[in-house]
């Protein structure tokens, strides 16, 4: 087990392909770090550098307080699941799992016990004597997982380890990973595109874009206090709504003025005023003055039907562009401030198509600067 420090890490491929542009992340011993970000933003590259598989162009990688930049992979005591699985094609599943153990001179009896344990955990007992070419994508992925879990390293590195599993298996494996992490407490860095994995597994989440960490914090911070619109719309499904509004002050209360309904249809478009309770007007340093245009960030679950909120929240009546039932909720699509907006309603609501009265929980709102896309004020 080890703490992990990533200090000012840069990576340049060739002469001028800059992939990582100064990454700073610190996680304590036993913490679970989630890396999320768009395709090609450098997550796998960062993982490879932690593993010692890519050279560090600039900066330091620190494990347990020691700089490990020049330590070869085998001396870093890590175990890794690769995005492409990277199973050894000529070896059976059993040998794939045992390869690292036998190279590390683990006694045969212990190897067998480990293989049995891992195979049971990942439900691949029946596949042990097959070659990787004879496995399905999801089965290969579990073998790749098994190869990593066979050891108890200082750090686990997982590159989208559950991406190819069916929904049920994914949920099962996710909780297995969670339990395993609880039991062993091994420091873990985990790349995923799955919102739920990110929120449920991580102690910390780092949201990356174009080789830069946009925000590094607890899942709660990332979800409720996104520092910019990228983080706000990256985490959460459906993502946070970003509604163009104009600020106004009414009776000493900060309000947002926004157009309701589709702008193309002038006759049905009207201007509504939404009091932004919870924003402290005395906090003038961060809250812009009246008349300023901002983006009002509201998550779908904070814009729900009035019945659900039982009197709380500001009211807003909106037309229905489209309503979709997901089973657990109804997703209502409407247009606010000229932008497409999703609200999460109780099942069966709004399916009639007539206008709906929403209860908007403005106490969960975030204001963003439309120019810089940075957050300028949080309601909480």
């Amino acid at each position, binding site marked *: 087990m080890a703490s992990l420090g990533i200090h000012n890490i840069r990576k340049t491929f060739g002469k001028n392909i800059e992939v990582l542009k100064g990454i700073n992340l610190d996680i304590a011993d036993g913490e679970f770090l989630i890396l999320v970000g768009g395709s090609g933003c450098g997550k796998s590259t960062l993982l*490879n550098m932690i*593993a*010692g*598989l890519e050279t560090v162009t600039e900066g330091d990688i620190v494990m347990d307080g020691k700089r490990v930049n020049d330590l*070869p*992979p*085998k001396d870093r005591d*890590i*175990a*890794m699941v*690769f*995005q*492409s699985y*990277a*199973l*050894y*094609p*000529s*070896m059976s599943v059993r040998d794939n799992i045992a*390869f*690292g153990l036998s*190279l*590390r001179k683990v006694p045969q009896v212990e190897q067998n016990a480990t293989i049995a344990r891992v195979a049971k955990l990942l439900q691949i007992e029946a596949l042990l004597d097959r070659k990787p070419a004879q496995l399905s994508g999801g089965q290969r992925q579990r073998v790749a997982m098994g*190869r990593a879990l066979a050891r108890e390293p200082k750090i686990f590195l997982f590159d989208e380890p559950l991406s190819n599993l069916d929904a049920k298996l994914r949920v099962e494996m996710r909780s297995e990973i969670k339990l395993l992490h609880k039991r062993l407490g091994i420091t873990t860095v985990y790349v995923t595109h799955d919102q739920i994995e990110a929120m449920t597994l991580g102690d910390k989440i780092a949201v990356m874009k174009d080789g830069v960490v946009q925000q590094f914090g607890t899942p709660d911070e990332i979800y409720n206090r996104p520092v910019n619109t990228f983080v706000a719309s990256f985490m959460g499904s459906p993502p946070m709504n970003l509604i163009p509004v104009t600020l106004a002050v009414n009776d000493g209360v900060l309000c947002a003025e926004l157009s309701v309904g589709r702008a193309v249809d002038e006759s049905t478009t009207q201007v509504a005023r939404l009091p932004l309770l919870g924003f402290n007007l005395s906090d003038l340093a961060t809250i812009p003055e009246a008349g300023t245009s901002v983006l009002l960030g509201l998550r779908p679950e904070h814009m729900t039907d009035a019945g659900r909120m039982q009197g709380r929240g500001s009211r807003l009546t909106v037309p229905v562009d489209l309503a979709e039932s997901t089973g657990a909720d109804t997703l209502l699509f409407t247009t606010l401030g000229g932008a497409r907006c999703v609200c999460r309603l109780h099942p069966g609501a709004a399916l009639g198509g007539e206008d709906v009265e929403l209860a908007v929980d403005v106490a969960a709102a975030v204001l963003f600067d439309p120019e810089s896309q940075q957050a300028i004020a949080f309601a909480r």
Partner: protein
Amino acid sequence: MNIISRVFLYGILILAALYALAPMWVMLATSLKTLDEIRDGSLIAAPHAPTFAPWLKAWGTACSGVRCDGLKPFFLNSLLMTVPSVLISTLVGALNGYALTHWRFRGSDALFTLLLVGCFIPFQVVLLPMARTLGAIGLSGSMFGLILVHVVYGLAFTTLFFRNYYLGVPGELIKAARVDGAGFFVIFWRILLPISGPIFMVCIIWQFTQIWNDFLFGVVFAGADSQPITVALNNLVRTSTGVKEYNVDMAAAIIAGLPTLLVYIVAGKYFVRGLTAGAVKG
């Protein structure tokens, strides 16, 4: 219409096959005839009474130069020269290809370019410098020297073959093995070699054919007792004691070409497979 084009197609194919096989047939038929029959009969006629005497003579007693013990000793020479040359150049080529693709180092691309140029250097160009080098390290006129020459000259090709093959092996495979604790040679031995079958076959066939059939290096660098069969064949054909024994010459030529033929028959299907490997995914 369909039948006509089909007949036409097969006609052309059969003609082409006949054209390619005709010399083989003439050689085989001639080698099984007596000298009298050769003189009187037609070139492509089958032998009336096949005789193996020319074959036995070519193998055991025909004269090349001043020696009159047939091709046998030279056949052995060629084997002794070809087998180690092929194995060494193939194995080193595999290591080179592996290093050039998966353990890239500063200047590895430049090195590869230089090696590529090596493929296009004609034999004649290297003769003189090679002779001086062999002389300098005291290997001129020896079997070892000849093997060294073939290994060095073949490396450019084998490296190219293996490099292109290993380019198709995903880098994460090597990375996974490194994380598991394997080093340069363990990865080569345990991960890459087991999946290199087809390209090994390609290399072995290619190198075997090149080295077994080589004449120039053999005639220049071999000593009197390390001459390969190609040189001996040339001498045998040109050593005439009175009448020209076409049947013995033909038998000798076939004997000299037999091993490459054999290699193709045994490993030919891997050759085609190896050449097209990686062209289709999966």
